């Protein structure tokens, strides 16, 4: 056991080290995903106005609530405006893998999704997303003059690390309230269709994994089984040894007590009696068993019963 414990800790440490090898991703479910600063003819709000907007994306597969969160914006150092996302609006609950748009129009009375600040295109803009505990969850800085009218600054695809300018060209188009990259195919399926039309690749790779999984189990339980058998044999040997020891101890104790059976004692007494000349001719004893007389009804012995015992 002393030898096994360090091994166990070493294994756990190795597992922890391996787990931490991957790059740590932001912990927040909700991320800033796309920002459009100068809206001339892009997406309109529910008042028919073209205003700047900030898109928030829920990257998780569960709903996430923005109520009580803060959006902070700073266009000049030391001058940060904070917008408190109101509580009590069910629409602040962002569904899994969905987007929500905030209008930066400095008109918070227009509704939950209208902030109290605007964005200025000629200055570098810092936007931060804070949770209800005021912890920074995500931030982005849009370089000064990086965006022209109707262009957005967005992650290359939803929740990716890279940001780019979406200039509304064919492959980089502005995507308010929708995926930054339109998913119009299943890349995995397409890959298999293209490279493995017969299915041999799938069969080989999948069967390898199936075999590997069950082979691991085999190796593991082979070892466990052997260890178990070994331990059981060892245990059995020990108990046999203990039994032998107990038996020999008992025999020794009996010898010590020198218990002589009554028959032996009688035979010895008779032999001594004869040796002293008290004996005469051999005599025979006959044991006779006679059937009982009368029926079982009158035989006392038949009526004797064992007293019932409560167990």
């Amino acid at each position, binding site marked *: 056991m002393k030898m096994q414990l360090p091994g166990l800790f070493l294994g756990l440490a190795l597992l922890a080290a391996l787990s931490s090898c991957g790059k740590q991703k932001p912990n927040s479910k909700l991320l800033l995903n796309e920002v459009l600063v100068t809206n001339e003819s892009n997406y309109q709000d529910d008042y028919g106005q073209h205003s700047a907007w900030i898109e928030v994306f829920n990257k998780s597969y569960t709903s996430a609530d923005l109520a009580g969160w803060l959006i902070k914006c700073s266009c000049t150092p030391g001058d940060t405006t904070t917008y408190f996302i109101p509580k009590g609006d069910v629409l602040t609950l962002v569904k899994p893998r969905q987007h929500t748009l905030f209008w930066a129009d400095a008109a918070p009375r227009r509704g939950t999704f209208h902030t109290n600040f605007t964005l200025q295109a000629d200055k570098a803009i810092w936007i931060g997303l804070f949770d209800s505990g005021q912890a920074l969850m995500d931030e982005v800085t849009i370089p000064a003059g990086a965006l022209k009218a109707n262009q957005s600054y967005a992650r290359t695809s939803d929740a990716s690390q890279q940001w780019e300018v979406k200039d509304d060209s064919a492959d980089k188009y502005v995507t308010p309230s929708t995926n930054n990259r339109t998913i119009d195919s*299943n890349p*995995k*399926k397409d890959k*298999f*269709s293209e490279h*493995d*039309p*017969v*299915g*041999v690749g*799938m*069969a080989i*790779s*999948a*069967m390898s*994994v*199936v*075999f*590997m*999984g*069950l*082979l*691991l*189990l*085999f190796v*593991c*339980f*082979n070892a*466990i*089984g052997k260890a*178990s*058998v070994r331990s*059981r044999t060892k245990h059995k040997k020990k108990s046999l040894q203990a039994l032998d020891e107990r038996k020999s101890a008992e025999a020794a104790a009996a010898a010590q007590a020198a218990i002589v059976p009554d028959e032996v004692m009688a035979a010895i007494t008779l032999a001594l009696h004869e040796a002293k000349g008290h004996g005469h001719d051999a005599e025979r004893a006959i044991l006779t068993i006679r059937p009982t007389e009368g029926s079982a009804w009158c035989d006392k012995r038949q009526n004797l019963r064992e007293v019932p015992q409560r167990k």
Partner: protein
Amino acid sequence: MGEFINFLQNNLADFWTYTGLYNASVGHIIMILIGIVFIYLAVAKEFEPMLLIPIGFGMLIGNIPFNMEAGLKVGIYEEGSVLNILYQGVTSGWYPPLIFLGIGAMTDFSALISNPKLMLIGAAAQFGIFGAYMIALALGFDPMQAGAIGIIGGADGPTAIFLSSKLAPNLMGAIAVSAYSYMALVPVIQPPIMRLLTTKKERLIRMKAPRAVSHTEKVMFPIVGLLLTCFLVPSGLPLLGMLFFGNLLKESGVTRRLAETARGPLIDTITILLGLTVGASTQASEFLTIDSILIFGLGALSFVIATASGVIFVKLFNLVLPKDNQINPLIGNAGVSAVPDSARISQTVGLEYDPGNYLLMHAMGPNVAGVIGSAVAAGILLGFLL
């Protein structure tokens, strides 16, 4: 008065358009007949009655014709209907893991633990899945559909439903019915293949009696099994997690009530709901297609391939095993996860050739390995294709 009679006539005529008699089509009649055949097979031949009775009766329920445009909310595909609500356990995939919980709680893995090399037979038999996958691709199905069809070869109904609900929901009815039908037909499909691929000498091989397995080993199995398989294939977690959890409930020895519920009332309830709704999902308008017929053909092929690959693998395995520790190839068929039917087939066929050779306990090893193997294979297909 004439107007009133006219009103009555119109009313009755209107009612007539709502009746099953008015809306019946040839497809409905065919599906109802298939349902009756299923019930007959279950009652008269005792082919998987626990599955075929609910599925067969579900087919009758699902194929009662009605006016689909009336918005009656009675059909299984009409959102908000009772049948649709029950069917959500299938479409969202939560019935199969619960079935696996029950399977875990009723399965004794001792045979496998005592002779772990039998696990490899369970892996080999999964080739049925990928053989069918290749044939499905050749027949023009796309990779996701082919994966969902291929899983029929795993001979595992819940796994087939789980995977098809993710990869090809539109084919799920046909896949589920096909998987369960062939599981019921294991006694018909497997023995000829087993006889064909083995020699008389091989069929007479007597295997060493399995050793006694300690309680510690039995408790360790679900824990180690879960960690090893799910670290490798996390996408198999819903099925494997529940399977091993159920087994731990059984083997821990301290959760007897939970284990009994999982392998008793819970699995029975889910089996009823699953069977009935899968049967009802075979609504003729959705089910009677060329694809369904192809799926049935591919399902049969996948069972044949799985059985053959299990048997052939044992024969090859015997080449490297010592002479005194050979495996009877008749247990190769049990690598498909139709528990315990395929293991019983091994026993029955084995006894035909040697009345003193009891293979059941040995066959249970690959059989339960097949359950793990098919769940792992489903996880791989999900990971590769979704």
